[in-house]
């Protein structure tokens, strides 16, 4: 047997394989609970990308409250007007300060956590920016000047470090502009929340989808968090001070 093949072969019970196929679930995203990590029917049936227990230097205990065997998922969507932000970014660019939507979203997400009393439970309100196949984690966003945040982001883009294992409450995915509205996005391992942002093609609006593990994030708090994010982007001046 080819050793490389043996190492990469996914162990899946025939029934689990069939169920995953019927549900169009890529087996690679499933975690196997059988012997040697074999994916079983129960793993497919319980599929919602299971949030692995979050580890926070500040708060370890609440992680135990997560129930990986019975994950529950909630999703919240909103449409965010980008007009004010676009005008502001254009004005700043004219004065020699260039910022991208990514920078603003990172900042807004951090601020939304700052408005959320229980944010400390979720990895210190850190935000993981999803890059191609990896993540870069930004902590202490509210305390950081936007210029510093941008420099850090560009540095993360330039190197290849992957902080998938670094604790963070939320992962942020910026999808290319289109006129498609995201309906459901899976959670990533270790992230209790995921924010997906998809700017509309004309550039007037962005569709925002917040997916959460309801077993670890209060649904009402999550909705409030999203409202806070929208408010920050639609009234962007506050993000620059």
């Amino acid at each position, binding site marked *: 047997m080819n050793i490389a093949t043996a190492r990469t072969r996914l162990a899946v019970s025939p*029934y689990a394989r069939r169920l995953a196929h019927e549900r169009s679930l890529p087996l690679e995203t499933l975690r196997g609970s059988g012997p040697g990590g074999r994916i079983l029917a129960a793993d497919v049936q319980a599929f919602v990308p299971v949030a692995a227990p979050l580890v926070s230097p500040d708060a370890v205990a609440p992680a135990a409250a997560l129930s990986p065997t019975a994950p529950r998922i909630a999703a919240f969507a909103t449409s965010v007007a980008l007009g004010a932000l676009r005008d502001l970014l254009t004005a700043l660019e004219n004065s020699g300060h260039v910022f991208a939507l990514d920078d603003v979203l990172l900042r807004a997400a951090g601020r939304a956590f700052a408005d959320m009393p229980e944010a400390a439970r979720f990895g210190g309100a850190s935000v993981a920016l999803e890059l191609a196949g990896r993540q870069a984690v930004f902590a202490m966003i509210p305390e950081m000047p936007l210029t510093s945040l941008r420099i850090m982001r560009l540095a993360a883009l330039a190197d290849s470090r992957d902080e998938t294992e670094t604790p963070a409450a939320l992962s942020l995915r910026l999808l290319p502009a289109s006129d498609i509205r995201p309906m459901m996005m899976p959670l990533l391992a270790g992230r209790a929340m995921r924010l997906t942002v998809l700017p509309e093609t004309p550039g007037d609006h962005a569709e925002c989808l917040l997916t959460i593990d309801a077993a670890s994030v209060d649904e009402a708090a999550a909705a409030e968090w999203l409202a806070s994010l929208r408010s920050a982007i639609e009234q962007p001046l506050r993000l620059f001070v």
Partner: protein
Amino acid sequence: MSAARARDDFKGAPNLPDPKILLDLFERMVLLRRFESIAQIACRKGETPGFLHLYIGEEATGVGVCAHLRPTDWVTSTHRGHGHALAKGANPGRVMAELFGRVDGICGGRGGTMHLYDRSVGLFGTNGIVAAGIGHAVGIGMGARQQGRDDIGVAFFGDGAANHGGFHEALNFAAVQRAPAIFICENNLYATATPLKSITLNPEIATKAASYGMPGVAVDGNDVFAVWLAMKEATERARSGKGPTLIEAKTYRTVGHHEGDPVIGTYRTQEELDAWIKRDPIDMFRKKLIEDYGIADAQALAAIEARIEKVVEEALSFARNSPEPDPATVRLHVFADPINPPAALAWRAAGDTKTQGWLEAVRDGIAEEMRANPAILYFGEGTGERGGSFAHTKNLWQEFGAERMVDTPISEQGFTAAAVGASATGARTVSDLMFADFAFETAGQIFLQAAKLRYMTSGLMSAPMVVRVGAGALRSSGPHHSGIYHPVFAHMPGLIVCVPSTPADAKGLMKTALRAGDPVIMLEPKALFASKGEVPVGEHFVPFGVARIARGGTDITIVAAGQMVQRALEAAEALAAEGIEAEVIDPRTIMPLDIDAIVASVRKTHRLLIVDEAWAMCGLGGEIAQAINELAFDELDAPPGRLHTAPTSHPFAPVLERAMLVDTARIAQGVRDVISGQPPVPDHWYTVGLKSAAPAKPTPAPARSLPAASTAAAPSDDEPVTMPFGDLTVSEGTVVKWLKAVGDQVREGELIAEIETDKAVVEIEAPVSGTLNAIDQPVGAVVPMGGRIGGIKK
């Protein structure tokens, strides 16, 4: 050849039969000779597949014997049997076509030279197995007698068979039963190439008849009229109920053992061959017809030979022009189609039931069928007046008599062969072999004769017999009385294999078996003989190939048969407490196997454990697990598991026997293992020997579980009087009499009570001298074995 000579002095005798009879004998011998000569050429040309054993030189015997037989009499034959087929009246063209393996052959091309059967003329097979057909003739005769006909069974066999157990068992059984049968030994002096004188110190085969108390006659087997005369007397004797006769016909084949074998070889001389050719049966008889009897001239006989020449040429042409069988038909004629008799499939409303013990329920089933069908014969050892070793035929002899409940000698081969012969010719038979282990004493009759008959004859014949045995482990029955072997039987195409688990199923399957069209191996687990269950009142049939869901469940399917069903149900109850709901499927028949029911269950549970009392190697676990791989792979959420009896003989010591058998705890653990995705790994392959040569650390054996005495706690200072442990399959008895009252003085060994079990009345003796101070079980009470019935104060 002294006896033969004695019959040879009729020259000029005035009491010759009708000349037509004599001319028919001549014509028939010519037919046999010319047919074989043409077959010989065809074989040398490679036109016939396989190889042929030719009858050339021995024609007088087959013709002289068969001249007395009707189409409704049957002959059983040998590997050298083309002549018997033709002498009995089979169509030469269709026999030749069979030798060619063609569709118009008398067996449709499935049988061939050594397996020629023809129901229409009473030909019960040439036979590839030496001595196998001798016992068939016994059963054929007994079956005809039971059906009120005076037809007889006639067995041809060679001198080689006279040293085979099949010969001795069949002759003895036939003699004691006064069977309407005749045994024709064609002594051609060599068993293949072994001289008769080198393998027996008594080469006078006819004299062996004396051992069995029947007449034995030796005749010149090359003198057709001598054979005819001897057979005339034997036939009259058989038809009139006087019993069987052994006829030894001394003859010689003037060809090799088979086509291609040298005519002389290392074992015969040219001088010997030449001497026998001078005594050629056709030449001798031609000369007698012309010169001694004066009933024909050379010209008339030449005309007969010319006519026969035409017959055999037409036969050859017919065979050559017959098409080959359609390969698409290869799967036909293994079993009756449908495999179940109509009675087993008829819808019956669920009605009343009554609680019955296993043995009683099956006895009822057999009795019902024997009442309904007077052609059922029951052969068994001690199953007559005694009622069977397990009381499993109790009262049947009293109702049906010794003619039908036949007490046999310990001749499994002999009476099972008779069961094959009778069941294939209009009767039905049970061959009761007592223990499944004993079936191997007659394995050839079961596997090679009964199982293959339907197929060999392209569905024209079958052997609807029941082989009934007590099977499986029970309380230290030991290495020769504990096996169940159902996979061995199920391996053989043509056998139906039943392993019931409840009294109702045992009765229902037995009744179905007694109406079925195929041989049925009825393996009744001895461990269940003492069990009780609800049995439907009235006609109750259980069809073959329909599993029973013994317990519904959602998490795992357990397949178990026989005594493993109860173990599996106990495990399922224990597992339910852990939140595991096991479904238990009882296939009831191993062949046909209701794989659909198992697949349906696995579709629901997605996990499978097979639990089987037989061994693992090439066994039921592997069979079913692989079937699920093939039929329902995508339903499996875990590798299927299997638990079998350990791959050892059955040890005697109880602690060893327990270590060998699958029990409830092992099943429960097996279920947990399968659910955890890691089924128990067997080690029956022995590729590297046992994993651990050293004996495992001895663990204290669990306390022997005695049947709980139903009495309340008894005074501890007296000596208990108990129901003794006795027969293996009896678990309880009823107190029928107390001979002493409380307060009476008793002496040690004195009879104090009587307990009646299913099999006998057990006398209870005082264990010590003293005063009977307690009667715990009054008359009428049912007491388990080992249970206390009273106490004696010393």
